[in-house]
């Protein structure tokens, strides 16, 4: 019999994750501008990597060819942005790790992505709703990052922002068409919205690392992105005839390396080749 989800995600998982990097001893918290920058960059790069991987899982499985191509193209944009963010993270860290090493040879507790992006794809509507909720945050995030005090971050953000303008246009358009579509498509979009809503609050929760990065003008404070996100989401949901869930409950922990049970499964698929044949190239 397959184990139940509660068996897989034990209450002690967070504690195990915390002590694992120290091989049995709790790793000492390092506080330095360099470390903050590394964490901030992995948060950006892990979001695009994990969402890019999730979206790439659709390749060859979409409802129609055009949507298959569109999803693959969006995944490609996100993976391309990952190479820039994680490439810079590796450079900042200065330990000889490049974007590939960070993507393929870290464990779940070292990933800093939002829990939202590791959610399984579900149906096509669910994937589009996740994309929209993320894009509506990603766009103002990249707009703010273009004013970063770190020129390397500003230039990557300027590049990525042009691509993400297409993402948000497409995901908003499809959320409206499916929400204000047939009875069946409306029901599925509303269900997706309710399932994903508790994962959106984490986007706006800052921690001490965020506060220090914001103070230094490197990255925006997460709280500052709520207003533009709300504006986009409110307008699109209204046009889509979807009802915004009332609950403000937010699952959190991804940004600190505490992930859901889905993360390990995703990494198993994404990392297996580099884990089995370290350094393999072709």
């Amino acid at each position, binding site marked *: 019999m397959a184990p139940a989800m509660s068996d897989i995600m034990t209450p002690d998982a967070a504690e195990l994750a915390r002590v694992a990097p120290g091989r049995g001893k709790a790793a000492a918290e390092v506080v330095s501008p360099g470390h903050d920058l590394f964490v901030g960059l992995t948060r950006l790069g892990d979001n695009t990597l994990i969402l890019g991987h999730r979206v790439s899982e659709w390749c060859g499985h979409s409802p129609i060819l055009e949507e298959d*191509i*569109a999803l693959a193209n969006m995944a*490609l944009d996100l993976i*391309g942005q990952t*190479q820039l963010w994680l490439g810079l993270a590796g450079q900042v860290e200065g330990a000889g790790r490049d974007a590939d090493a960070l993507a393929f040879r870290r464990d779940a507790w070292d990933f800093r992505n939002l829990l939202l992006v590791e959610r399984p794809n579900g149906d096509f509507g669910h994937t589009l709703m996740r994309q929209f909720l993320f894009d509506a945050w990603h766009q103002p995030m990249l707009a703010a990052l273009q004013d970063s005090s770190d020129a390397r971050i500003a*230039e990557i953000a300027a590049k*990525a922002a042009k*691509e993400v303008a297409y993402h948000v*246009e497409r995901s908003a*358009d499809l959320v409206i068409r499916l929400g204000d579509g047939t009875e069946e498509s409306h029901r599925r979009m509303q269900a997706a919205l309710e399932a994903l809503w508790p994962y959106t609050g984490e986007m706006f929760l800052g921690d001490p690392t965020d506060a220090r990065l914001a103070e230094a003008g490197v990255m925006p404070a997460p709280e500052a992105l709520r207003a533009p996100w709300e504006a986009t989401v409110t307008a699109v949901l209204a046009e889509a005839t979807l009802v915004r869930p009332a609950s403000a409950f937010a699952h959190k922990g991804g940004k600190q390396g505490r992930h859901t049970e889905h993360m390990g499964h995703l990494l198993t698929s994404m990392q297996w080749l580099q884990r089995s044949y370290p350094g393999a190239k072709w």
Partner: protein
Amino acid sequence: MKPALDQVWAWLGEVPDPEIPVISLTDLGIIRDIVWEGETLVVAVTPTYSGCPATSVINLEIEAKLRSKGVENLRLERRLTPPWTTDWITPSAREALSAYGIAPPVGLAARVNRLAGSAPEVACPRCGAVDTERVSQFGSTPCKAAYRCRACLEPFDYFKCH
């Protein structure tokens, strides 16, 4: 041997884009700068889209071309600023795209407002009709969108204004 920079630009103007071979790398506007740093030729290249898989092939082809012309000390640099825009595609390359069956970008990226209702009027590259519709925001590559002509019914790629 240090060939003149004009000569190097001309050589790179002979290297076709790997995805769209009717236009060259210089037509596409992705070669941003060429300079001699002492005895080393430095070529600054900007990616079209950050995930464009043609980027590594493009770098290989630049290197192969310049080596074939006798350039021994060569360094390629990735340049992200300013980010690539279709505004840099030359007028002759726009004609070549159209003749090849790809509708060239309409208007200037700097002026495009991508919000709803501002869809460009894209002419069919086969019959010239402007009665066309967008099928998908993304086409065969990230830089293109899928369109369909309502007059001649042919599907075609539109090189998005970016």
